[in-house]
């Protein structure tokens, strides 16, 4: 119960905040006294400043573009990470590709905090013209989450006894058919769980997006940080966008929840 309150309280506060007018933003009441949907409207029609002319906002564009940007960057980044990661994990798990060395050093990308290499990365990206492009963001997201993809999926593939694949092989299936008809269906739960995990990572990524794609390919987390006016932060709009931003993850999680259960409980048949 305590844990529940602990984890849900911020969410509840965010919901409450998103329905409050500017005068109530700093008030302690949970139920808004004068509920308003202005905050949500402001996300889509930024020309209508919340709280009248008192708040001059720097936001000029609606959230539709950042939303699409986020979907593209996080979505494609996830798809690439999962595809490449699965094949890499399969090679490592079945054929010990690269020995123990390579698989261990894929962890390197996670050993340094992103902040340490974001500056050189920006210089590098600038020199090859990748700043503010989809390709730049997608490539970065793929590279950064690939480690997770490999390690997570290696675990799931390790759980599949190689006999199942060998049996299919002896039945006359080619190695690609085995992968398609036996390995992937059997690891499906794990793959989907890994994909969701990676999607959420990419979706909520802030630092890289802020540094390398701040004007054109703005993503949602960056957009949230932009709701700042001359006199202070626009908490209502931020809360509203924060809630809107959780929707894709929730929807995705809901669609695949059946697979998630098998993904988390998957094990040997006996």
């Amino acid at each position, binding site marked *: 119960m305590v844990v529940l309150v602990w984890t849900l309280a911020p969410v509840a506060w965010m919901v409450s905040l998103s329905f409050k007018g500017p005068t109530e933003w700093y008030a302690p009441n949970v139920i808004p006294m004068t509920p308003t949907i202005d905050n949500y409207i402001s996300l889509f029609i930024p020309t209508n400043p919340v709280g009248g002319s008192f708040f001059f906002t720097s936001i000029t564009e609606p959230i539709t573009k950042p939303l699409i940007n986020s979907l593209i960057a996080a979505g494609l980044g996830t798809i690439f990470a999962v595809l490449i990661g699965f094949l890499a994990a399969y090679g490592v798990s079945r054929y010990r590709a690269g020995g123990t060395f390579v698989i261990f050093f894929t962890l390197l990308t996670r050993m340094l905090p992103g902040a340490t290499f974001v500056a050189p990365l920006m210089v590098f990206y600038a020199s090859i013209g990748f700043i503010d492009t989809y390709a730049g963001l997608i490539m970065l997201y793929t590279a950064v989450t690939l480690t997770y993809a490999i390690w997570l999926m290696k675990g799931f593939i390790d759980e599949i*006894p190689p*006999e199942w694949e060998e049996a299919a092989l*002896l*039945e*006359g*299936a080619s190695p690609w058919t085995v992968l398609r008809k036996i390995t992937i269906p059997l690891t499906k739960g794990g793959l989907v769980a890994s994909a969701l995990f990676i999607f959420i990572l990419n979706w909520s990524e802030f630092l890289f997006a802020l540094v390398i794609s701040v004007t054109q390919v703005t993503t949602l987390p960056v957009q949230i940080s932009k709701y700042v006016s001359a006199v202070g932060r626009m908490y209502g709009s931020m809360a509203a966008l924060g809630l809107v931003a959780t929707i894709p993850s929730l929807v995705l999680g809901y669609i695949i929840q059946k697979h998630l259960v098998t993904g988390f409980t998957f094990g040997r*048949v006996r």
Partner: protein
Amino acid sequence: MPKLEVKNLRKLFGTFEAVKDVSFQVEEKETLCLLGPSGCGKTTTLRIIAGLEAPTSGEVFVDGVRVNDIPPQKRQIGLVFQDYAIFPHLSVFENIAYGLRVRKTPGAQLKTKVHDAASLIGVDRILDVPGKKLGLSEMQRVAIGRSIVLDPKLLLLDEPLSNIDAKARERMRAELGRLQKEIGIATVYVTHDQLEALTLADRIAVMRNGLIEQIGTTGNIYDNARTLFVARFIGSPTMNLIDCELTRSGKQVILKSEDLVVDITELAEAITGKVEGRELILGIRPEDISLNIKKTNPRAIEAEVQLVEPIGAKSIYHLMIGRIAVLAKDYPMPDVNVGSRVWSTFNADKLHVFDKKTEEAIL
């Protein structure tokens, strides 16, 4: 032409030599059993035949065709794995049909083939059950069905009964034997259980440390063990092995140990090589020792009963002949209890003599 021929197979895993030099043949409809303790290279040999491992050197011929460079999916060999490897996400029908689907067999033909195989192995009533819900004996049958539905040239079985508890194993062993007879294709069977080998195989190859120690018909292996290892490995309870020496006095030839003297004059001619003064081991199977309360045979040896294990039609007697512990298997004798003295007679035709140094049989 043999159905399967294996020539000078050798397999290294790093520096470990799993298979050293293995050669054998399997004829049409024959079942050959590779028998040996774990780590003797029997499963590796089987996996090389199936194409799942590449041999370091040596050749494999199926139907006279060299298959070394043919990938496993094109060898037409059926393999039943130790834990059966039934695809858990497919139904029994789809499991059996898998290979046919891969081969793009037309629907109607596929159905008849699967149903034929299913009724042969007795799973025609559970075709819709998913693989993960099968019991062990069903899995075994489906695994066999999945292999035979493709009309393989060869069937390989890798310890198919080792995961099963003793009671079910007996039943499944019998069932496996029946299926084998009905299917009638050349089979290589890998096991570490000598009883399985004796009951299911036509011929047995006893393996040890990557080599075939002895190969022959089941009867031959049982009666004429060529080495001490084979003698120890086959048979339950295990053969009695007694350190002894051979001495001649006049025409009489006797095997003598501390507390035991066995006259083998009639057998002396069959002994190969010069054996006087060498350390020998006398071997006799428990069932080749007969017991009697009175001394009815002049050669009978007196023994003291230490323990009687009634195991049904026959009992196992733990005897002490002087300081030598010997097992005998004979009919139950109501008057014989712990501490009784009995007269034991060794069946001279069934004696084995091994050289202690070379471990090879000399009789």
